């Protein structure tokens, strides 16, 4: 059973850079729902007290948003790039595992932005990045 349902990267101005669903047989409506969930999580990050002011060294934000089917975990870099992972509600994953996962995801993101042909803060269309995220997802 796959635990990770969706991985999303949201840019500085809350513009989506990358959203990828993993569950098979998702209808368009379900995909839309995932996008919606990610957007809700964004609001929660904005609302987090102190988040805008102080630069915390702790990038991992923990559980952001539990819904009936899914749980959303977040991670924010000091340059305000947000990473989200949507997992199934039934999955039980330790925080430390999430931290490792996000760290790896961030490294993939860094490598992708280092591509001289990628324009920063635009949608990530790299197939290599997509493949690496797909490979990474089952590690959680």
């Amino acid at each position: 059973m796959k635990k990770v349902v969706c991985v999303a990267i949201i840019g500085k101005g809350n513009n989506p850079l990358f959203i990828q669903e993993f569950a098979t047989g998702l209808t368009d409506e379900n995909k839309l729902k995932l996008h919606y969930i990610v957007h809700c999580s964004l609001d929660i990050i904005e609302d987090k007290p102190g988040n805008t002011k102080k630069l915390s060294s702790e990038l991992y934000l923990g559980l952001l948003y539990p819904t009936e089917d899914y749980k959303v975990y977040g991670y924010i870099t000091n340059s305000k790039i947000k990473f989200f992972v949507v997992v199934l509600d039934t999955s039980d994953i330790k925080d430390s595992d999430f931290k490792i996962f996000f760290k790896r995801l961030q490294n993939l993101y860094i490598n992708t932005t280092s591509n001289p042909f990628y324009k920063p803060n635009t949608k990530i269309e790299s197939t290599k990045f997509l493949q690496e995220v797909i490979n990474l997802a089952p590690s959680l």
Partner: protein
Amino acid sequence: MGTDVFNKVEKINSELFTLTYGALVTQLIKDYEDIEQVNIKLEQMGYNIGIRLIEEFLAKSNIGRCADFMETAEVIAKVGFKMFLGVTATVIDQDPDKREFHLILDDNPLIDFVELPEQYKHKLYYSNILCGVIRGALEMVQMKVKCTFMKCTLSDETSSDIKVVLEEVLSDMIPVGYD
């Protein structure tokens, strides 16, 4: 041999190097728009680097005159590439006349992180600067060569392949760089 020299030379952060080169190539594409022009420009830049780099190479590596062109090939692949890029290349397809060889680059620090957009594949030779460096360096040691990229991993091909053809051995009497 190559490793000894590699330990001797100054090093810089490889990411700085890769990103600087990436910025250079993308800027050239922006300026010239025509990919063929970019390839030519990269080669010329490499040539200008090569004619200077050979001095440092000869000074630090203590390598004497090569007996034949095939020895030159091995020196480029095992010492030259190691010294300046930290990787080694493999020499294949030497022709019996000893006037031609192919360099296979398994690992190329210039292309770390790089993913070519579809429209540039098989057109842009991203690491074409290397061809220029080889041509420039060899010209300074009295060998006029033609150096071309045959294959590039960035265009989904299996390996990076640089073909080097010896055109003529310049006479020692001609002043260096005087065509």
